[in-house]
C-alpha cells in the first residue's frame, strides 16, 4: 500500500493529523500497536473546571471514538494491533502483526507518544506492582479492578487524579506515599519538593479535589520552612496522603502482600520508624518521557531537554524536523495533555500539507496559535517548565537553521 502520509501512533496527535490530512484530499494511514485507537485518550476521564460548562467532563474514550469515526469516514486507513519495527527510505514503514508487511509513503509523521518512567523500589518486579498508567487504563478502559487494596507511590498531579478515578470506580485505595528517598537516581522528590510541586499545579489540576489539595497545601504551609511541614496526614477523598512517608520496600512471596513505609524528614532523610501496610497492589508514578526510537532510526537529531520530559527529536515550532519528509506531533515532542497533542496533530497536518504544496483549511500560523492556546488552557500540567522547554527548543531550531 502507498499513501501520501504514514502516521505512527493512533493517539490524539496521530488521529487528529490523519483527519486533517484526509479532509484536505490526501491519503493517510495510521498504525498503532494497541487494539483500539485513541492512545492515552482511552484511559482519561476527568472534570476540566476551565472548560465551557457543557464540556466540563473530559471523556477521553468518547473523544477517541469520535476521532476514529471521523478518520474512517474520510477514508483514513487505520491499522491496529500492528507493530512498526522499522522506518527507512522515504518512506517505507515495516510492520508486524497485521496482513500487510509494509506500507510506503511520501511523508512520515511520528506521533509515538510517551512511556512511563520507571520507579524502582525493592520488590517492584512482583506481580501486583503496576505503573499508574496501567492502573488508569485497567480502571477506566477495561473496567477491571487492579486489586482489592491499593497503595500508590509517587504523589503528583497524575497519581492524585488516578487515585480519585480508582476511588470513583469503587477500588479501595489504602493510601499514597512518596517514593524511596534514598533513590538510586537522586531525583525523587522530598516532602518539601512534593508540596511545592503540588502548589505549582494547584490551579491547573484535573479536578476540583486535586485543586483543593493544592490550595490546602498552600494555605496550610505558607512558608515551606523545614519546621513548617509538620503534618503527618492529609486526606483526599478519604484516602490518606502520606506526604511524610516513603515506600521503602514492597513485600511478598509470589505477589504483593504488603508495603513498608518509612517516615522521612522534610528534606527527605529517613526518620527511623517503619511500618508495614498490607496491600495486594502497588501503583508506581514517576512521570512520562517521549518515545523517540523511530525518530532516531529515521536519522533525526535528538536533544536532551528535561523541561520537555527527556530526550526529544530536534523539531521546529511547526512540527517539522531536519529530515525531509519527517514530521513529529504529540508527546514525542514533550509531555503535555491530550488537547495540546490534538492541536499539535492539526499543526503537523497543516505543515505537511504546505510542504506538499496543498492548500489547507487551516494555515500553519493559525494552527501554531491553536497549540499555544491549548497549552494555556491545559487542565493538567505535567511539567512545570514546559513553556521554557518549548522556547529553548525553538532557539536550538533557529540556530541550526541559520547554519543551513
Amino acid at each position, binding site marked *: 500500500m502507498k499513501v501520501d502520509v504514514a502516521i505512527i501512533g493512533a493517539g490524539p496527535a496521530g488521529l487528529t493529523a490523519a483527519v486533517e490530512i484526509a479532509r484536505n484530499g490526501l491519503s493517510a494511514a495510521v498504525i498503532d*500497536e*494497541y*487494539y483500539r485507537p485513541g492512545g492515552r485518550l482511552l484511559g482519561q476521564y476527568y472534570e476540566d473546571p476551565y472548560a465551557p460548562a457543557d464540556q466540563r467532563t473530559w471523556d477521553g474514550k468518547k473523544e477517541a471514538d469520535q476521532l476514529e469515526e471521523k478518520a474512517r469516514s474520510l477514508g483514513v486507513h487505520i491499522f491496529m*494491533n500492528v507493530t512498526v519495527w522499522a522506518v527507512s527510505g522515504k518512506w517505507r514503514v515495516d510492520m508486524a502483526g497485521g496482513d500487510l508487511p509494509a506500507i510506503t509513503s511520501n511523508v512520515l509523521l511520528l506521533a509515538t507518544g510517551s*512511556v*512511563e518512567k520507571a520507579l524502582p523500589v525493592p520488590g517492584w*518486579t*512482583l*506481580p*501486583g*506492582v*503496576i*505503573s499508574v*498508567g*496501567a*492502573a488508569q*487504563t*485497567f*480502571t477506566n478502559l*477495561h*473496567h*477491571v*479492578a*487492579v*486489586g*482489592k487494596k491499593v497503595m500508590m507511590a509517587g504523589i503528583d498531579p497524575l497519581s492524585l487524579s488516578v487515585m480519585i478515578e480508582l476511588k470513583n*470506580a*469503587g*477500588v479501595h485505595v489504602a493510601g499514597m506515599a512518596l517514593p524511596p528517598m534514598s533513590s538510586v537516581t537522586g531525583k525523587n522528590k522530598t516532602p518539601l519538593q512534593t508540596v511545592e510541586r503540588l502548589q505549582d499545579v494547584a490551579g491547573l489540576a484535573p479536578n476540583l479535589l486535586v485543586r483543593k489539595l493544592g490550595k490546602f497545601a498552600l494555605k496550610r504551609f505558607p512558608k515551606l520552612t523545614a519546621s513548617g511541614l509538620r503534618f503527618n496526614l492529609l486526606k483526599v477523598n478519604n484516602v490518606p496522603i502520606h506526604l511524610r512517608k516513603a515506600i521503602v520496600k514492597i513485600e511478598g512471596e*509470589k*505477589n504483593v502482600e504488603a508495603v513498608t513505609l518509612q517516615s522521612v524528614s522534610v528534606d527527605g532523610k529517613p526518620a527511623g520508624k517503619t511500618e508495614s501496610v498490607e496491600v495486594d497492589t502497588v501503583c508506581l508514578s514517576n512521570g512520562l518521557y517521549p*518515545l523517540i526510537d523511530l525518530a532516531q532510526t529515521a536519522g533525526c537529531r535528538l536533544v536532551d531537554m528535561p523541561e520537555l520530559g527527556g530526550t526529544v527529536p530536534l523539531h521546529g515550532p511547526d512540527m517539522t524536523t531536519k529530515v525531509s519528509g519527517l514530521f513529529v506531533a504529540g508527546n514525542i515532542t514533550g509531555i503535555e495533555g491530550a488537547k495540546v497533542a490534538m492541536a499539535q496533530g492539526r499543526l503537523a497536518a497543516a505543515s505537511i500539507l504546505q510542504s506538499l504544496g496543498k492548500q489547507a483549511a487551516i494555515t500553519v500560523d493559525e494552527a501554531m496559535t491553536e497549540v499555544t492556546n491549548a497549552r494555556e488552557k491545559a487542565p493538567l500540567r505535567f511539567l512545570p517548565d514546559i513553556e521554557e522547554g518549548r522556547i529553548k527548543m525553538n532557539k536550538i531550531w533557529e540556530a541550526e537553521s541559520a547554519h543551513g
Partner: protein
Amino acid sequence: MSNTLRLNSSSNKLETIEFYFNDKKLNGYKGEPIAASLLANGIKTIRTCEITGENRGIFCGIGHCYECRAEVDGIPNVRTCLTPARQGAKVFSQASGIKGDMEDES
C-alpha cells in the same frame, strides 16, 4: 460473569468468550485484551522471568515493557495487554516451572 474483579462500571452488554490459560478454562469479554480478562479472573502472574525465575505480570499495561508476554495460539512473546483473545484461544505462560504457582486466588 463471575469475575470477581470486574468493576460496576463494566458493561454487562458485552459478549462473553471462553479461553484457556495454562489449560484452565476462563471467561473474558470479547474484544478486551487478554491481560484484562486474566486480571478479572484474579490472575496476576502471567509468566516467570527466564533469568531470575520470579513471577511477573502486568506492568506498563500498554505494550512497552513486555512483562505480560505469553504464548497465544502458538505465537510466542505476544503482549497480552495489547491483544484481545479469540473465542477458544489457548494462552500459555512462557518459561518453565510455574504451573502450580500460577493461581493467585480463586
